[in-house]
């Protein structure tokens, strides 16, 4: 018994030896919490590759001249740090009144290189586990995003729910915005998608989903952000179209909404429709309550025919038609038909135009065929681009209107 106790005491004390220091210990004050990361591309054609505000030693300069034969691509990585005392608590409790925008930027051949380089400029180690948004500049996106996102997909510390957004123009500029409503640009950028996603004018995609698309070699959409310097605001809408991992163009907000009705589950999404009476130029607006989609694929004579049936249940939110009585079932049916026709036309038009314009399978037709029709997929997989170009697309829409808020009268202004 005595022997056991002494062994126990010995083991406990020997374990204490290892508690004297921890290699991974870093005081909270020395962490720089990164909230938004902006990545841009810069092509260097100068004699030597300058890093912002840094002198280059002679020996380095000689080495760089040797491999300066070709223009070199570098990443411009900009990090926006959170200033904890500027966002938490009340002013009485010590919250800073004027929060500064802590933005640091550098250039490097790799993302890790840039982050390491930033380590030498800031007094704290960049902590990426709280990153909410990754902004990618248009130029870089057109070159391909797989390499620039590899570090973030690989890292176990980055949240897979981090939003990836493509900016029209340099991503770095978005972070310089000084919005009057929110003290921190990062919060402003983060909060916009939360509300805008409901409108379905941008695709709802995060780093996790994007990593799956990249891995499967899919074509996909990423949300677009436009900086309006004149208005000092950001517009979050539309999408960047990607073929494999390269950006090939933009889709407008309306086109993305039409895409979403066909490709993504939509809920509480508002849609405008023409009034059932052809002479009536007015519109009515509905809010989607439920949406279901069924696809069927036919493969005949080497041609694919896709048929999509969409069922939508919606509530009327605004009525600007002259003769529309919601309690009259015939009138309601007419409205449903008008809504179905509007949605069908919109989807068909957008689908055909985007398919011809981009030749990218952003609707995921290839994925649907590979999942539900593996035999057809085996036949078309090799020449998928050719088959995709020639496929025919047919949409059927059935809608059902449930309520019209608290009023069942037609246009209130008319009465």
């Amino acid at each position, binding site marked *: 018994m005595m022997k056991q106790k002494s062994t126990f005491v010995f083991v406990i004390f020997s374990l204490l030896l290892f508690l004297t220091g921890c290699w991974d210990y870093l005081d909270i004050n020395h962490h720089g919490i990164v909230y938004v990361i902006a990545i841009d591309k810069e092509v260097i054609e100068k004699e030597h590759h300058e890093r912002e505000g840094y002198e280059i030693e002679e020996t380095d300069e000689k080495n760089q001249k040797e491999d300066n034969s070709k223009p070199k691509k570098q990443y411009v990585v900009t990090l926006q740090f959170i200033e904890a005392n500027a966002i938490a608590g009340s002013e009485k409790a010590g919250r800073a009144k004027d929060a500064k925008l802590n933005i640091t930027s550098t250039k490097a051949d790799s993302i890790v290189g840039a982050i390491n380089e930033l380590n030498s400029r800031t007094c704290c180690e960049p902590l990426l586990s709280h990153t909410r948004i990754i902004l990618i500049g248009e130029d870089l996106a057109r070159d391909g995003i797989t390499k620039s996102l590899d570090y973030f997909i690989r890292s176990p510390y980055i949240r897979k729910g981090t939003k990836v957004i493509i900016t029209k123009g340099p991503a770095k500029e978005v972070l310089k915005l000084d919005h009057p409503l929110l003290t921190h640009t990062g919060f402003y950028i983060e909060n916009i998608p939360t509300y805008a996603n409901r409108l379905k004018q941008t695709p709802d995609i995060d780093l*996790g989903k994007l990593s799956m698309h990249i891995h499967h070699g899919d074509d996909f959409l990423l949300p677009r952000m436009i900086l309006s310097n004149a208005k000092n605001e950001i517009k979050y809408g539309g999408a960047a179209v990607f073929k494999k991992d390269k950006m090939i163009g933009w889709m407008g907000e309306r086109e993305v909404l039409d895409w979403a009705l066909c490709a993504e589950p939509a809920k509480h999404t508002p849609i405008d429709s023409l009034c059932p009476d052809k002479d009536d130029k007015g519109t009515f607006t509905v809010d989607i309550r439920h949406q279901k989609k069924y696809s069927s694929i036919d493969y005949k004579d080497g041609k694919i025919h896709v048929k999509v049936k969409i069922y939508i249940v919606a509530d009327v939110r605004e009525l600007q038609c002259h003769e529309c009585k919601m309690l009259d079932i015939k009138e309601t049916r007419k409205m449903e038909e008008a809504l179905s026709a509007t949605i069908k036309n919109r989807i068909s038009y957008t689908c055909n135009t985007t398919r011809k314009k981009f030749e990218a399978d952003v609707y995921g037709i290839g994925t649907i065929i590979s999942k539900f029709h593996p035999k057809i997929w085996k036949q078309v997989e090799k020449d998928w681009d050719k088959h995709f170009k020639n496929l025919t697309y047919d949409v059927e829409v059935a809608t059902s209107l449930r309520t019209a808020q608290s009023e069942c009268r037609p246009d209130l202004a008319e009465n």
Partner: protein
Amino acid sequence: MTIIHPRDHISVTQLVLLISTTITTIGFLDILEIAKDIAIDTWIPVLFAIIIVPFFIVTHIKLAEQFPDENIIAYTPKIVGKWLGYPIAFFLSSIYFFLSLFIFQIFLEIIKVFLLPKTPKEIVIIIQAVVLLYAVWFGLNGIARLAELMIPILTLLFTLLLFLIFLKADYTNILPIANNGLLPIVKNIYKAVPLYAGLGCITMLYPFLNRKKKIGKPIFFTVIGTGIIIFFLILLTMLTFRYEVTDLYFPSISLFQRFTVSISFIERIVFFLLMIVIPIFFIFSVITYFLSVIGFTTIFKFREHTVFSILLIPAFFLISNIPISIADIFWLKGVPIWTIDIALLVPAVLLIILKLKERKK
């Protein structure tokens, strides 16, 4: 004959929890190996393995009941003779040692990647080796109590998390099912069977049980129950990642990494899960180490297992320190999967030989 100290006696509940721990540990790591060949159909061999496993449970229990006071290492030479018996006994003991070692290496990798990237590997190994020695030295009961503490928490948390993920999963991601036919799936069942490597605890730890009757039911229900939970884990991993699963070192951990609970104070559930998973890996490493110690003690006819628990530590420490890449250790390159299948089949073969011998008499 090896002396069984009273502190080494365990209850049937403790035994089934130890087995459950081993299934969970291998379940976390086995996905990648199966997914290499059949990608999205990975869940099917796991389902088949659940159907096969009762056979292994029955053979292990029936054999153990024939020799209630001895372990499989002791009675194998009695059944098949010295020349064949000792190599088999040595093979089984080595399997457990290497299983312990390689699971420990993966455990080290998880700690390095997810929790302590800057801490030297040697420090983690030394601490693990000291704790391992302590756990083995002071008997099986301590290990079993640890399993008793961790498994209920893990089961509760696991079920809750899996349910959360289930709500968000895309069920079409496992389509098309068996697109390349059933043959590749059947060929890969042998990779799913090692999930139940822990069944070896029955034949090795039977003499340590304080009640040796009616152990069939609790073992059966626990093994099948844990197998079903692991099946759902693997299914959900496939539903979440589809073909991407083949690119992930730790698909199950990545699965929990993919989901965040924004309303909870613990937003990133993966770290909460790691708090539970790491001790489970540790328990696995300790149990298999203990089994190998018992095995070698029996082969070399030592009276107490404490001698071998010290003798194997340097080997454990040295091999753990060999600088090999994750690709080398993944998944158990040192312990090929078929050897675990053979280890699971050994009791069935021994039982058949024993029955044949009895008939001849």
